[in-house]
Structure formats: C-alpha cells, structure tokens
C-alpha cells in the first residue's frame, strides 16, 4: 500500500514542450554543443504572449518576444538550461547557451532555439553520451516526440540514438498527482524525463 497523501489528480504538468535536439559532432567524434529547439504548447504560448503584450503594450511582437527570450534564458542560466549531460555515466560541465533565437509559428507555437555549449568537447570514442532535459519542478513536461527529434550533425554514420522513456514508480506518480497548480515539486521532474543516449562505440575503429 502506498503511504502517500491523496491529493489532486492531474496537477502534474500544466504545460508541455516538444524538444528537438541537434547533436553537433566534429570530425574526431567530439561533441561540442547540443542545439535545442523547444516548441511550447498552444495554451502556454498564449499565456506568455499575454504577459508580454501587457508588459510592452504596443511594441511590435519581435520586441516582445525578445524580452521573453531574455527572461527565459536568464532565469534558466543557473539551472544549466534544464539540461544534464553525461559521458559514460560521468556528468559533464555545461558552459552556457549562445545563439538564442525565438519566433512564433502560425501565431500559436512559440519556438525557442539555443545552442548549449559543453565546457569541454566530449569524445564519443570514450563512451556513450547521454543527456536529459527536464523542468525539475515538473510544471512543464519536456519530451522528444520521437527518435527523429534527435539529429546527429557531422560524421556519425555508426552512431545509434536511443530514447529511454521514463519509468517513474508508483511513489513518483502519486507525488506528481499531488503537486498543486502554483506549487513546485523540486526534484520530481527528473523521474519523468527521457534519457537520450548516443552510442558510437562501434565506430571507434574507423578513425
């Protein structure tokens, strides 16, 4: 029996983001950056637009979006932009984000795009690279819609991409259900995050 508080049903994610990631691999099989595109859901997009419409009334949408972009990037800076990267199970340092762009598609889907830079290039010859992107509070659910959402850029013929779906246990599920609208559940998000694994070990002897 679970010793958990019953609480609100479906209070877990209130919004969702579809993730698309380009993994940039150089000629010597090193990964330098992960270029991420986040597509926000239509309702959350509306909420954000409302906020910036009010903050900068009458300004053109480009300016409003830029202000939104700046705030997002700033508030995520201390959280490695919600990204965790590992090489052969060892965590890698993240240097920061650059080349941030924002646009709105069909007036309904906000797209944030940025390039996340690793502190040091990660050699794929030394083990598999894995990453996960998630909102720790699980207010927003962040998922890759499918394996095609992860693209390997560069010399990566022999690399295999695998998305490992989250397997939260009953305790996490019940806890997710118990998080209320305005609250947060720090540390909950990772139990609902996908791990993406890039394995190029079989191509190691080609060099």
């Amino acid at each position, binding site marked *: 029996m679970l010793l958990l508080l019953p609480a609100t049903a479906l209070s877990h994610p209130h919004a969702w983001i579809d993730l698309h990631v380009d993994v940039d691999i150089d000629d010597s099989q090193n990964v330098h950056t992960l270029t991420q595109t986040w597509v926000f859901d239509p309702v959350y997009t*509306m909420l954000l637009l409302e906020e910036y419409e009010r903050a900068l009334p009458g300004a053109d949408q480009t300016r409003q979006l830029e202000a939104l972009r700046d705030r997002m990037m700033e508030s995520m800076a201390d959280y490695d932009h919600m990204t965790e990267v590992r090489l052969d199970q060892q965590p890698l340092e993240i240097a920061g984000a650059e080349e941030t762009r924002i646009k709105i598609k069909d007036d309904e889907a906000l797209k944030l795009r940025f390039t996340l830079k690793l502190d040091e290039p990660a050699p794929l010859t030394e083990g598999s690279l894995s990453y996960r992107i998630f909102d720790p509070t699980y207010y927003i659910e962040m998922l890759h819609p499918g394996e095609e959402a992860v693209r390997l850029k560069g010399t990566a013929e022999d690399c295999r991409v695998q998305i490992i779906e989250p397997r939260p246990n009953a305790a996490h*599920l019940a806890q997710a259900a118990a998080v209320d609208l305005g609250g947060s559940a720090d540390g909950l998000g990772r139990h609902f995050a996908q791990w993406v694994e890039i394995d190029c070990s079989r191509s190691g002897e080609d060099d």
Partner: protein
Amino acid sequence: MSHHRPLMPLVAGLLLALLVLATPAGASPLGPDALGEPEGPTEQEQEKEAAEESIGAAGTAVGWLLSTQRDLHRALTTGVRELRNDNSLANGAWLVLISFVYGVFHAAGPGHGKAVISTYLLTHRTALRRGILLSFASSLLQAITAILLVFGLVVVAGLLSRDAMQQVATVELVSFGLVAALGALLCLRAGRTLLRRCSQGHAHHHGCSCGHSHHVDPEAVQGHGGRWPVVATILSVGARPCTGAVLILVAANLMGLWTAGILAVLAMALGTALTVSALAVLAVRARGWASALLNRGGGGLLAGAGDWVALAGGLIILLLGTALFVAALGTTPAIYRL
C-alpha cells in the same frame, strides 16, 4: 465489558480496508506520515520506497491513468487551439466532448475529493440517492468555483492569466482547511452521540460502546447527522477548482470564447460527477454490506458501532485535511520562470 467488543476492531478494519480499496492508487489517508512530512521529496525515502515498491499493480494502473490524463490534457490544449483557429460548432463540440472525457478520467485518479467523499460515505449511513447527489453537487460546485475564480481574478481584478493560475494554490488551502473542519465537525457529532448513549446506557449492562437505543432519534433515520455534514462535504470538495477547468477557462478568456469555455467546464464536471458517483455507490453499498454482516452478529449492535465508525471517519477526514493543508503550505513556487 461488552461481549460485542471484539467485533469493533473487525468492523473498523473492514471499513478501513474498503476505504483504501475505494480510493484509487491506494492513496490512503491512513499512512503513518499522514500528519508528518510535508511533501518535499526526501530523496532517500523516495528511493527506498521506490526500491520496495517498484511498479506494483497499483502503480501500473495509476501510471496508465496518468498517461491517459496526459494525452487528454494535450488533446484539451490542441482542442482549444482548433477552436481558436476556427470557431465552428464542430470544434466547440469537440472541445466539450474532450472535456467530458477528461472529467471522467480526471476523477479516476487519486484526488482529495474522492478520498473525502468515500470516507464520509463509508463511515456514515447515507441513502444511495443522497450519495449520488453529493457527488454531483461537489463536482458542479468545483466547476462553478473555477468559473468564478477565473472570471474574478482575470476579468474583474485584471490579473495576468499566469498569475491567476498561481492563485489557485491559495484557494486550495481554503479547501483543505474546509476538509479539516468537516472532519472536526463529524468527530464532534459522533462524540456527542456517543456521550449521549453513554449517559443512557447506565440502564443496561453494556458500558458505553453500544447501548441499545430504544427510542428512534430523528437523526438516525437520515443516517448519521442530517443535512449539515452533507453540505459541509460538498463545500469542502467543491471549493477546490480542477486544474484542467482553470486552464480551459483561462484559454477561453484569452480567445474571447467564454461560452465555449463554460460549456466545456460544465461537461468536465459532468464527467467527474459520473466517476465520483460510481465510487459513491460503491462506498454506500460496501457500508450496507458491512452493516448486514454485523447485524447478523447481534441485534442493535450497529447503533453503537456505527457511532464509533463515524468517529473514526471524522478523524480520518480531519487528519487528511490537516495533512493536505500542511503539505500545501510547504510547497514553494518555482524560482525560475519559463
């Protein structure tokens, strides 16, 4: 003392087991930590529990429920978008339908409303019709709360939709406080009845636990405690708006489609009411079955036992409300804003 005494733990145990069964996901208010830890996930405990639990049958069921809810949540969001792009009757009807299905599923997950209602119905004799009425009224009130809340905060007070959604947490606190108050009220009533029996019981050799009541007191005809507790139950459950409803209304308001939003939220309430009613029927039946079993054991026994059970139910609801209140106070808003 009384030769019926040994039955008491059995009765209580049976009812509590039923309560746990009737609360999906085994989300039991009886956990030893029901009053303890607010919900900050203490990692080690979580992990330990995870190791012991892995994904049990309950977990799988809840997992399936939650993933279905997630899909429905996405369907709601895209339904809103479709309506925005094309405000046609078909799209409006679609959104209402999705909302209804969402309501049915939403209610099937763990939730404090169901825990309160099923605990109440398991521990207080209630006519079946009244149990169903209770479920429908609470669901409808939840919808009305959501509508008034969004209208009041966004339209009247002019808050940003996002900030209005954050305010739901405050309303939630009120609701949890009401649950605790309901529990206290039920305890008081049961306690009073027990005391009264006690003072009458001196004529018999039964002690206080189960006096025969030779006169029929008017309250007993209606079940335990007349209209008051039912109203209090409706209020405590209905004061908490459903998050899906708030989301739809906020979006509807931004698109200037209040009518569609209100219809969708009412459909959602209807769906919720259907699921909760099914649970209520189960609870009322279970209680009837338990009473029948007991009555075979000795006439008049239930009159006293029923009060003890009602007291236990009141205590559970009181603990539940208090625990939820404390947990809700303990949650901190996110530090970053996406």
